[in-house]
């Protein structure tokens, strides 16, 4: 695990990079889930409009 060693600042460097990763991944998941839920709702609405 030498590649994760940043001397006396290891915990600070790793926590800053880990937090960044979490925020980036959360951004992607939130955007994708919003788009997919709205796509599902729109498709359902269009399908119900077509039936009527």
């Amino acid at each position, binding site marked *: 695990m030498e*590649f994760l060693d*940043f*001397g*006396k*600042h*290891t915990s*600070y*460097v790793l*926590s*800053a*990079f880990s*937090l*960044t990763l979490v*925020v*980036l991944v*959360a*951004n*992607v998941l*939130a*955007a*994708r889930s*919003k*788009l997919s839920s*709205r*796509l599902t*709702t*729109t*498709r359902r*609405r*269009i399908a119900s409009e077509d039936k009527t």
Partner: protein
Amino acid sequence: MWTWFHKLGSPPHFYRISAWLTPWFAWAALVLIVIGAYGGLYIAPADYQQLDGFRIIYVHVPSASLSLFIYVNMAIAAAVGLIWRIKLAHAVAAACAPIGASFTFLALATGSIWAKPMWGTWWVWDARLTSELVLLFLYFGYMALRAAIDDDNRADRASALLAIIGVVNVPIIKYSVEWWNTLHQPATISKLGKPSMDFDMLIWLLVMLAGFMCFFAAVLLTRVRAEVLVRSRGQKWLKQALQEN
């Protein structure tokens, strides 16, 4: 130029072009961020004073730059929506807010993590930190205002005004380190001045910055597409676009 601008403002054209552009930005972001993080963590030399602690700059500076860049984008989009009544512009502004808030939070959090070993404290009520915190509250205020108004048109107009007024905070954040005595260091990269970093360190910061920009573009396009779906309710082109997919 104006034809292009008006064409981009049309939801069907935007919906189609954004679906094509998003994967390009997403892959570019992934490649650049991985390369930039590797370079920043393992290739860039350690700072002679801050040692390896300085490597936090590779996530802190891009987040802080993006927090300002996104706010300016949001304010411009809001102004375009307000002046020219382009609905897509309001959708862009609305999509910018949560992304901007997350990068502002990240800038504050990584700055705080960096401050502890360097300044001996997690937080000081210094001009740069306080004005960045105000930026986070501006993003929250913008989102809360939109959520509080049921009518989309009124929500667009009210939140656009807040976004435009709040832009006054951007130069305050940018120049706070020059206008007041602060613990925060001055700008690392300046357009006019010589960068205060060695090229071996700077290159990875620029790669990370480019990666974060591409990331923002990909997430923004995805969020704007979601906004367009709601705002184009009942329109023929939407039905055709969904059937084509």
